[in-house]
């Protein structure tokens, strides 16, 4: 994978089981610096304290959803260039279009496998 494996990655999901799954898959892909947050606002706080090379976020969380997090990130000049992948069960056309308009880099529908995660990360950094 032509990706910097040392870059810090932030995984955002309200289910710790899902965070653990993504964390393990990322480790298998070779990434080592992986942080996590349980909702958008916690993620935003972490992003303002550390520069992440990639954010992988769920959509449906409380109080701040992944969609709101994406819009906040794109609206913040200090964070706006951060690659952002949505990993979610929200797969309606309107969701995908809204995420695209908000500036998402890629979109993975749950449930997914390691190959899909790898492919989407590679696609983001190939752009």
């Amino acid at each position, binding site marked *: 994978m032509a990706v910097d494996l040392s870059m810090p990655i932030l995984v955002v999901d309200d289910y710790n089981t899902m965070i653990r799954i993504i964390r393990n898959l990322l480790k298998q892909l070779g990434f080592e610096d992986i942080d996590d947050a349980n909702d958008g606002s916690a993620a935003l706080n972490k992003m303002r304290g550390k520069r992440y090379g990639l954010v992988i976020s769920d959509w449906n969380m409380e109080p701040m*959803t992944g969609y709101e997090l994406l819009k906040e990130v794109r609206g913040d000049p200090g964070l706006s260039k951060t690659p952002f992948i949505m990993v979610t069960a929200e*797969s309606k056309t309107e969701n995908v279009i809204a995420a695209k308009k908000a500036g998402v880099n890629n979109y993975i529908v749950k449930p*997914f496998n390691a190959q899909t995660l790898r492919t989407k990360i590679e696609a983001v950094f190939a752009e």
Partner: protein
Amino acid sequence: MAVAIQQHHDRIAAYLKKKLGADVSLADVIALAEITAQSLQSVFETMDSAVHRELREIAAYIAAMKAEIAGLHFNELKHTRIPAAGQELDAIVKATEAASNTIMECAEAVLAADASDPAFKSMVDEQMLIVFEACSFQDITGQRVAKVIETLKHVEARVARFSDALRTRDTGGFVSEAERASAERKERLLLSGPALDGNDRQSEVDRLLGK
């Protein structure tokens, strides 16, 4: 009742026509009062009968509605069946979470182990047995889901019968501000949850994104 009132008017009108132009004595006034009283009595009798019939119909409707409400077994639903279904769903979430964690712990242990260690094979065998055991959650959660479905069907049957009996029509609106706020949040933030055909959506999502 309209006929009785008309007759009452006719009697008073006839009396007044008879007395038109003549001097009005105290006896005439008393006679008019008597006619009025007699006429109104029949009006009130008619009115009593109509009101009584309407009240009897309302009472019968209320009695039928009470019977239908009793048929809902609302207290049983509220205090027993619905809380029990909620507990089953909580247990399902906990069981699936515990099983996932157990399986991931095994996988993590195997991935972290040294494959050149002579004990590696026996360690992997042991971890795989734990994985098999953890997968037994599926049988138990299947039974719990069946109980929740049974409760939903129970509620559905009673609500449908109640609705049919009362011939109710759906009206808009929410039962509480919290429900309204939740619905508005879901609409605003595009929260609809997993689709039933979610497993096949990735290629469509890729197409929409132009990836």
